[in-house]
């Protein structure tokens, strides 16, 4: 049961093979038995989950079930959940219980999905390994000494270790795609504005986007159907009709124009990963796609631009955590300044402090033009490069990451080397484009992801490509457990 995809679980529930309560209990048992070695979950909500499962079974008997009704999932602990702790991986919010639901969790609950709990992440989503979490790192099911990627690492682990059939993630610079790649699952970051950010704790507001993390592209399509859509509570969400993402999955890929940016295959890319990508591309060629080399000349500038813009936004997004209204407050503050400095000093971890300082510096008078404004100009140019490239090709393919998952602690002393790992993913966030990572091979026993970047609101095409690839390959069926 626990190796089934969402689609398979849906038919199992439909045929009465098992109930939602049985299914939910099976996952809860598994979490209880196994999660101590993965540390995928920060909070497990067994009682609530079983109640939701019971309601889902009742809904099914009443003939009102949708395709996702009764299927369990896990939420990245960045999505606010009414009545359940939302920590964002930080000591700062270790005591925080939101009085409201994020639109994403609300929509998935409306669809009848059962929430098993909240998954681990890098503190405030700042990181690529979950190592910055206040709750300790999560461990990669393919090799427990290695990181699962991040920031949505707990969600990726939960799916890869079969602690949940699917999970939500968020992606500011690759935080869905990179852990999906490291853990051998499918993850899609939709177009900026496609999924509401309401109730999703902000890191870099102009970059953050929620999305599904699943075993297959079909599952991602099913989940995105429930997650996507305009939300009046998020001014940056786009009022555009949501297609049924499962409808185009089976379209043939004949004539698909694939672009391979030469900058994504240069120095710095692990040659074995390059080989995996090349063979995946060959697979698409055999399915009738055409391939051409393209150029994204400002790829090198994406990291510096991102590491100005995201920290700048983060530095002010995180100002609200001041110990005044909720969250961590230091003991016996002597005055206001003491309250602020000690509450924030104690509540935030090193990586968060580092980014707050970078962002504060970049926005300061006298530096704004040299850093923030310049980074925004770069962002515009990077966007232009992508728009030009997507005139010539339908999708851009390449590796999701330059190397497979590293060993926990290996990069602890060199944060910049971690930043450089984001090189292939952050451009899609800067440009606002949708990007997907699907499993396409292994290097030294660790999974490798193929990244597919498409045009704005072309999620259907990305999922179609993912599904077709998964119809003719079996990388996505490999299980770590």
């Amino acid at each position, binding site marked *: 049961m626990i190796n089934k995809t969402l689609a398979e679980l849906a038919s199992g529930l439909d045929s009465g093979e098992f109930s939602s309560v049985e299914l939910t209990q099976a996952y809860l048992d598994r979490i209880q038995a196994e999660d101590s070695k993965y540390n995928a979950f920060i909070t497990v909500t067994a009682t609530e989950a079983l109640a939701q499962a019971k309601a889902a079974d009742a809904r099914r008997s009443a003939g009102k079930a949708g395709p996702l009704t009764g299927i369990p999932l896990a939420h990245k602990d960045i999505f*606010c959940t009414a009545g359940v702790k939302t920590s964002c991986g930080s000591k700062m919010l270790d005591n925080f219980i939101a009085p409201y639901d994020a639109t994403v969790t609300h929509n998935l609950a409306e669809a009848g999905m059962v929430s098993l709990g909240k998954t681990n992440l890098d503190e405030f989503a700042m990181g690529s390994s979950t190592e910055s979490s206040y709750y300790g790192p999560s461990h990669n099911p393919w090799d427990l000494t290695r990181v699962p990627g991040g920031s949505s690492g707990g969600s990726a682990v939960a799916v890869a270790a079969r602690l949940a059939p699917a999970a939500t993630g968020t992606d500011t610079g690759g935080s869905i795609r990179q852990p999906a790649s490291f853990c051998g699952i499918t993850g899609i970051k939709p177009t900026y504005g496609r999924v509401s950010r309401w109730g999703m704790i902000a890191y870099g507001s102009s970059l953050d986007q929620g999305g599904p993390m699943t075993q297959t592209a079909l599952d991602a399509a099913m989940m995105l159907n429930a997650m996507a859509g305009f939300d009046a*509570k*998020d001014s940056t969400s786009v009022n555009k009709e949501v297609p049924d993402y499962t409808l185009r999955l089976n379209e043939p890929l004949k004539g698909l124009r694939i672009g391979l940016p030469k900058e994504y295959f240069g120095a710095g890319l692990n040659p074995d990963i390059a080989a995996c990508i090349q063979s995946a591309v060959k697979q698409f060629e055999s399915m009738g796609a055409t391939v051409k080399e393209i150029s994204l000349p400002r790829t090198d500038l994406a990291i510096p631009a991102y590491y100005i813009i995201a920290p700048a936004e983060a530095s002010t997004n995180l100002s*609200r955590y*001041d110990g005044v209204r909720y969250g961590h407050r230091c003991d016996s503050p002597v005055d206001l300044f003491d309250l602020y400095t000690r509450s924030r000093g104690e509540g935030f971890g090193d990586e968060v402090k580092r980014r707050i300082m970078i962002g504060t510096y970049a926005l300061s008078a006298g530096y704004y033009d040299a850093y923030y404004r310049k980074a925004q100009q770069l962002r515009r140019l990077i966007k232009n490069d992508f728009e030009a490239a997507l005139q010539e090709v339908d999708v851009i393919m390449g590796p999701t990451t330059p190397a497979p998952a590293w060993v926990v602690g290996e990069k602890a002393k060199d944060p910049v080397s971690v930043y450089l790992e984001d090189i292939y993913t952050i451009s899609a966030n800067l440009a606002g484009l949708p990007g997907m990572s699907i499993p396409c091979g292994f290097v030294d026993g660790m999974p490798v992801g193929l990244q597919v970047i498409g045009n704005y609101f072309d999620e259907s095409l990305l999922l179609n490509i993912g599904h077709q690839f998964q119809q003719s390959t079996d990388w996505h069926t490999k299980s770590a457990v």
Partner: protein
Amino acid sequence: MEWEVVIGLEVHVQLATKTKIFSGAATKFGAAPNTQACAIDLGMPGVLPVFNGDALHKAVAFGLAIDAEIGKRSVFDRKNYFYPDLPKGYQITQMDHPIVGMGHVDINLDDGTVKRVNVTRAHLEEDAGKSLHEEFEGMTGVDLNRAGTPLLEVVSEPELSNAKEAVAYLKKIHSIITYLEISDGNMAEGSMRCDANVSIRRPGDPVLGTRCEIKNVNSFRFVEKAINYEILRHIEILEDGGKIVQETRLYDAEKDETRSMRSKEVANDYRYFPEPDLLPVIIDHDFIEQIAATMPELPDAKSARFITQYGLSDYDANVLAANKTLAQYFEDVVATSQDAKLSSNWVMGDLSALLNKNNLETAQSPISAQDLGTLILRIKDNTISGRMAKTVFEGMWDGEGAPDDIIAAKGLKQVTDNSAIEKIVDDVIAANPEQVAEYRSGKDKLFGFFVGQAMKLSRGQASPGQVNDILKQKLQGE
């Protein structure tokens, strides 16, 4: 030494929207602390602002009223600083692309001239909450009801030359916002607050002197006093060879002085940058036209109309038109009385005096415009004298009823019957032979005595005009 004063004003106008500028919480004044603050106002994790279209509508109306450029694309920015009553750690405001660009207002000076004051800009922003220091011993309370209340900050050019001009400017802004009904303009409740930037320089000096900003002055009278205090302070310092320190000061109304605000930070770096949670506001021509079509007659236009339509003086027209309800009241009085001059005299004279004395707004007047108009009619048709009218007016103020009822109840009908008055006059002459002789021998001043006697005899009811005429005639008669 001669000094030139330069004043610029920043006026914060609280827009009268039902809900806050970025949330659905109510904006009503005076609610129990923190009962009108939702998750957005509290700056909870993951919440997002949504711009209130009504605030936009009201800001554009103001822009049109001061003949300003409307920003076709305006952008919200974050102004970052830490304070307990600023829940997000930043205020959402507008920096480089305000909703209202350069405009102007005309102010009426005491010497009867009109001065044009340029308005640099007006931008939308959210208000902060309130820190309550008094009620909590050793602690500070935070009330976030006001957090997120929409404000329009109106910034003038430094073109005002004295405190009186500053007040005239403020009154004109107040008049415009209440005409447009975009704000209740209630200064006591903080719906309109003013920061004044004051500096002085030698006449002809092209460089502005160092300025001081006086924060949050909440009445016209205090603005005038605070500015005058500040001007004298500057003059004293400079004439003693000192230097002005650029700083923010607070006006203490009780001591009538300004004081340097205690502030630990030397200079705040607000780290402004575009608010990523909100899209730029794009306004098209049709939207502006739509608002333009619903604009009411504004004070300047109304004043001009009062001059031409009713033949009022510039001064009277300006005073009446400055207040929308007073202007409407006046026009309602005229509609009944059919006499603009008498109506303006009564409205600006007796009525305004009593309203001011009792601290009442025009809308709270116990005397309806129609009743006042009727009273004026009764003067015009000689039913009562001007003096009787004062008695009737007082009766109306005290709630004794409609003017005709009071006239009847108090028996105030004026005696206009010539033969009756002649008889009274005859009686007065007969009763005062000595005075009559003196008068006739040239002591003209005694005429008043006879009028008084006649009015007394008629118990005040004889028409004073007729008494005059008949007395003159009879005293000269022989």
